[in-house]
């Protein structure tokens, strides 16, 4: 298995320089080769672990409580307008 770094970087939404693509690509191939040792471990019938205590359906009461985080969170937003985080245009006029 080899690591298709350009494709994965697109999925992860990280732009990489030429140099990084080379370096990280070769690192990741080596790591991948290392983790492939797990293929040799028989796991037929073994349940996967997503949580060590297998807790299920942890509920708490659906109660309304006052919180004031909205204004505080927006205060340090990179860019805001009224109660919103502002981002660059999503759809270009020409397209």
């Amino acid at each position, binding site marked *: 298995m080899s690591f298709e770094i350009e494709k994965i970087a697109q999925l992860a939404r990280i732009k*990489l320089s030429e140099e990084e693509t080379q370096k990280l690509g070769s690192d990741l191939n080596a790591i991948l080769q*290392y983790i492939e*040792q797990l293929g040799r471990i028989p796991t037929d019938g*073994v349940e996967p*672990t997503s949580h060590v205590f297998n807790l299920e359906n942890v509920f708490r009461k659906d109660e309304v409580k006052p919180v004031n985080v909205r204004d505080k969170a927006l*205060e340090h937003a990179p860019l805001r307008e009224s109660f919103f985080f502002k981002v660059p245009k999503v759809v270009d006029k020409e397209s």
Partner: protein
Amino acid sequence: MTDDLYKLTLTEAVRFAGENSAAPLLDALRDRVAAVNPKINAILRFDPKRVIQADPRETVSTGLNGVPVAIKDNICIDGVETTCASKILKGHIPPYHAAVIQKILASGGTLFGQCNMDEFAFGSSSETSAYGLVRNPWNTECVPGGSSGGSAAAVASDMAFAALGSDTGGSIRQPAAFCGVVGLKPTYGRVSRYGLIAFGSSFDQIGPLTKNVEDAALLMNVIAGHDPMDSTSVNVPVPDYVKGLKRDVKGLRIGLPEEFFIEGLDGEIEKSVRQAAETLKRLGAEIKTIQLPHTPQSVAVYYIVAVAEASSNLGRFDGVRYGFRADTRDLKDMYLQTREQGFGAEAKRRILLGTFVLSSGYYDAYYLKGQKVRTLIRHDFAKAFEEVDLILSPTAPTAAFKIGEKTDPLSMYLSDIFTIPANLAGVPAISLPCGVTSEGLPIGLQLMGRHFEEETLLRAAYTFEKEIQLKQKPQVVSAG
């Protein structure tokens, strides 16, 4: 005497503040940080003029008497910049306190220093911080370990009475070992993760880094317990860990896992750790060899499952809401460039690996396989804990390595081979000093226990610590 106040342990500082006041302690730490931090870079942010304490309208117990605890930079403090030592969170000011911060303040504790770390806790050397690497107080040419290297180095060099760190694959215990302090990773679910900026959500735990075992017990009394805001925190009663400290290991069954005493383990470390087992035996513990057969696979499992969780958790850092944003005209470019410029190399490496193992076509072969082998590792521990009450091992295969020595990521990952298994199984584990190498670097002893049996870990650690009475101090401390 007042000149030396920074040397106090947390327990001593709390007693001092109760009899006098916390003010002289705060002054002593301020001077100490000013003198020592430029050499170590353990404290990222430190505002001597601004001591954070509980809201006076809230009911506060006087337990900690105003004594400050230093905090790793991935634990949210309301109104104070918290960055995970990453450029991407520069300027991020959380709008709320983490549960552990609320608990420290509600116990009468205070805060004024935030500790440096590996970026997003990705690392074992604290070299990946976007704000400069941390140096080991025992030898400033060496790393302090990581990722809670700032917390460990701050405690070791008396810039903090105690600190909080977080441990996903060894990030409390390995730096504790490298810096000669005590570090406890609690059982997964013992301490609330609410307000801990997530790395590997099924592994992360917050825990204390302290000058001795008693202080670790004291801090656990403050931070442990169920929290409705963290649905993975577990609702089981919390004992009084300080009251549980006794010098008694009689009849305690302690296992040495064969798979931990392997090639690659430094000879001096092996000798020191085996000697520690002999000491515990002399004090009445029963020592036997046990097996944890899947130990050799633990690093591989961890670097699938933890990075998968990390890539998902770090998806939110895209320039929209927090900290840094690259200036672009297009939204997609904003994501791509914010993440390019905001993340360091190790963060990118782990995000990419995590994205890969979760991607369509590879999920079963990597992520699901990793989760299944994780089950086998949990079973290994469950079986071992039928035979023994505690598992004893080295915390790390070597003492602190040199800054810049480990350039290959895989060799860095493999340095966590002895700490990762406890995170995979969710069991509690402690590292405490058990000796010093011929090069003058501390050696860490690791004890692992059954789920929620921190009390047993602390009692054995306390007994051992009192018995051997290590006297060596780090260079920067002896130099004053």
